[in-house]
């Protein structure tokens, strides 16, 4: 019998909040389902993007630059080794992108396949340089997004795989270049062990402090909070309601901010409006909705202050610099039921049949449902508030809690009335937010559409989003110019109504590991192990951690 393998507490980082089921895939191409840390800890990307600093940092790439408008030259970092001992080569990088080419040999449908909309071909200039040759007029914003998104694969291994294994295989024996290696997995946990030969040791001058990372599969909030209180969890990326009272209650639990909203904002929760249905096709009606919602009640009562009310533009704080504040002052809204009433009255909404609810100008009854999945308790409470506020101004809007399946189906098929959604996440480009709102073209909406579930149709906006996509990275002035126009459209046309910013839920326990990200410390990385966040500076957080014992 093998001896007991144990992970000493002071060398192990316990995390939770990302993995919702048993770790079952270590395939970095399985976008929704790889085990926590597969990208970031094992597989690495060419760049990492730090949203707080709005900065791309070359990572597996040593450097990269546009040699002309359509040529992107990427220098591969020297001395990077795969955990099987092979060196990282330009071939690996080329291979990684080639397999996603819809017109290539492999034709794998991958998260970054869309890059090939703009990409012409990839060439290897020398052993360390890969040249991406784009078609005319490339979409720099989107391209940047894919570059920090695509995990670089080992060609020797992956080229031997069949297509279904590439896209859907479990990749049980992941070979990466990252700071951690696969150690063990079970239904309720994922264990990584540090890769002491990691290239970053030389580059950053250190290895991440935890020898082991044990990611605990989420049971329930209850269990996560229990473990946190027991001190068995260092980082919880769960949404833990009531954490405000714990932060201030002497339980040794820390968050990014010391006070409300405690958490960084990660995404925007919006009220989706089905523009194809009456009376939601009426912009006046949509505007009235925006004015009637007491967002403060949602923030304070529902979320006990751990979220922030959204800016009327819906732009996350990281994109604050693009917001035209004056325009917001002019066109923005706040909670004002009287104003909402007036807008409706002016637009011809009145109670004709005396049932205390307003009818549409054409006299038809208004009876709408605002939905969220059953069991999503914070959202359930939020739509209750929305319904309550609607009734207060005479709109018959009832909350409804279908199960997730039917709820999602209604979005994909466009059959809902009003619903909540928070798909628009923090990313390297504000384009991602607008492309989500103004997803085009409408007529070709697949059942697995991503964005614009309300089928909002505005050619001008669609064109602006395309234009935005093509702005060079770092050209903030151009971005601001285009987004100002888009902001105006969103605030006057109300394709969706941004309500609040969901937090980057992160609670830490300092008993074993310290120097967690915080607003007042030096560590400003994103405290998240969420998928897509480790390569958005989450890895930085790990590097910054220090054992508590040292103090």
């Amino acid at each position, binding site marked *: 019998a093998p001896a007991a393998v144990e992970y000493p507490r002071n060398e192990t980082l316990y995390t939770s909040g990302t993995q919702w089921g048993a770790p079952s895939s270590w395939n970095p191409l399985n976008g929704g389902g790889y085990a926590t840390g597969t990208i970031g800890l094992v597989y690495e990307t060419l760049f990492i993007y730090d949203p707080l600093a709005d900065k791309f940092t070359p990572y597996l790439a040593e450097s990269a630059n546009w040699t002309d408008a359509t040529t992107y030259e990427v220098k591969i970092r020297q001395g990077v080794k795969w955990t099987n001992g092979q060196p990282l080569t330009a071939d690996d990088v080329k291979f990684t992108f080639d397999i996603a080419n819809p017109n290539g040999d492999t034709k794998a449908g991958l998260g970054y396949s869309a890059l090939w909309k703009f990409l012409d071909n990839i060439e290897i200039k020398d052993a360390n340089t890969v040249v991406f040759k784009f078609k005319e007029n490339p979409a720099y914003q989107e391209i940047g997004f894919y570059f920090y998104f695509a995990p670089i694969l080992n060609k020797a291994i992956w080229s031997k795989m069949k297509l279904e294994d590439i896209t859907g295989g479990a990749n049980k024996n992941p070979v990466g270049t990252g700071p951690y290696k696969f150690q063990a997995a079970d239904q309720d946990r994922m264990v990584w062990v540090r890769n002491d030969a990691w290239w970053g040791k030389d580059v950053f001058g250190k290895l991440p402090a935890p020898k082991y990372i044990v990611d605990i599969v989420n049971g*329930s*909030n209850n269990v996560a909070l*229990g473990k946190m209180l027991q001190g068995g969890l260092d980082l919880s990326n769960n949404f833990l309601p*009531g954490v405000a*009272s714990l932060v201030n209650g002497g339980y040794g639990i820390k968050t990014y901010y010391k006070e409300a909203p405690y958490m960084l904002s990660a995404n925007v929760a919006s009220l989706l409006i089905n523009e194809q249905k009456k009376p939601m096709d009426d912009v006046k009606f949509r505007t009235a909705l925006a004015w009637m919602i007491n967002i403060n009640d949602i923030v304070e*009562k529902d979320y006990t202050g751990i979220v922030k009310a959204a800016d009327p533009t819906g732009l996350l704080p990281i994109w604050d610099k693009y917001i035209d504040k004056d325009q917001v002052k002019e066109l923005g809204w706040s909670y004002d039921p009287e104003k909402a009433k007036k807008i409706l009255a002016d637009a011809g909404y009145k109670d004709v049949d005396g049932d205390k609810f307003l009818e549409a100008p054409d006299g038809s009854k208004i009876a709408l449902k605002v939905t969220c999945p*059953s*069991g999503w308790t914070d959202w359930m409470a939020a739509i209750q508030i929305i319904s309550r506020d609607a009734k207060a101004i005479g709109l018959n809007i009832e909350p409804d809690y*279908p*199960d997730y399946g039917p709820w999602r189906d209604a979005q994909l098929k466009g059959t809902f009335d009003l619903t909540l959604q928070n798909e628009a996440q923090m990313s390297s480009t504000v384009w991602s937010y607008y492309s989500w709102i103004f997803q085009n073209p409408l007529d070709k909406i697949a059942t697995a559409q991503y964005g614009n579930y309300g089928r909002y149709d505005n050619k001008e906006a669609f064109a602006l989003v395309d234009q935005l996509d093509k702005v060079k990275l770092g050209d903030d002035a151009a971005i601001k110019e285009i987004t100002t126009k888009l902001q105006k459209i969103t605030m006057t046309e109300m394709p969706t109504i941004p309500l609040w910013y969901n937090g980057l839920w992160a609670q830490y326990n300092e008993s074993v590991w310290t120097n967690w990200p915080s607003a007042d410390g030096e560590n400003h990385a994103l405290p998240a192990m969420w998928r897509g966040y480790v390569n958005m500076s989450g890895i930085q957080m790990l590097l910054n951690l220090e054992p508590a014992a040292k103090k």
Partner: protein
Amino acid sequence: MKKKNELLYFALRNTKLRIGMAVLLFFLLLMIIGPHLTPYKPADFVGPSSAPPSKEFWFGTTTFGEDVFTQFVYGLAPTFLVGIVGGVIGTLLGMLIGFVAGYRGGAVDEVLNILTNVVLTIPVLALLLVLVAYIPVRGVLIEAVFIGLTSWPWAARAIRSQTFSLRTRDFVGLAKMSGMSSMKIIFTEIAPNMASYLFMTFILMFGNSILNAATLDFLGLGPTEGVSMGTMMNLAVQWSALMLGVWWWFIPPGIAITCIVGSLYVMNVGLDEVFNPKLREM
């Protein structure tokens, strides 16, 4: 006449029945007058977040600042509703199938017996979880109906065997010779003889329905609207009430269910003692 009086006498004297009845009545009363005792509605955000019990908020408030007492008293009605509807449907189905199988015998019995066994061996609540998860709108009533539809087998079995022994009794033969139809015999001759038994079956079904509903609610598969004891527990757990020390949100619904179901069970035993002279204590 005398016999009925005697039952009443023993019923009134039976401690178990008295205690069970008292507890049940208390909660029923609370269900009726409770909503008048509170100025709030269950989903109103009326107070501070997670306030402990106080003069103003008798059972404290939830994380959202809802009044727990209000939720509690409003939640009793759905709880009783599930019990009664589930219990009635379950008992009726059990009776129908039990009576027909027991009275008819032969092939009919065989088929019904297999049906009963099938439903009995299928882990009903697991099935319920699966089915309920896909119904687009879920109300208390639908939940109750579901529970009723799946909880009859044991009752059917028991009623069948009772009917089996009753149908060979001579008074059934006499009824047949009086030209009565089978259904009439079942319902006017056999069923009244099992009245006490059927009543006890109903009581057990009542309790089980409440427990089943609480489990469903707790797993988040209960009614999507309104409050019930189960959804209160579900919400409390989702919002980590116990871990955060908001015990007043979590404890009352559990106690209510335990008391209601417990009182039903105790009443059942009490009734058994009343109806069965051998078990009576002199």
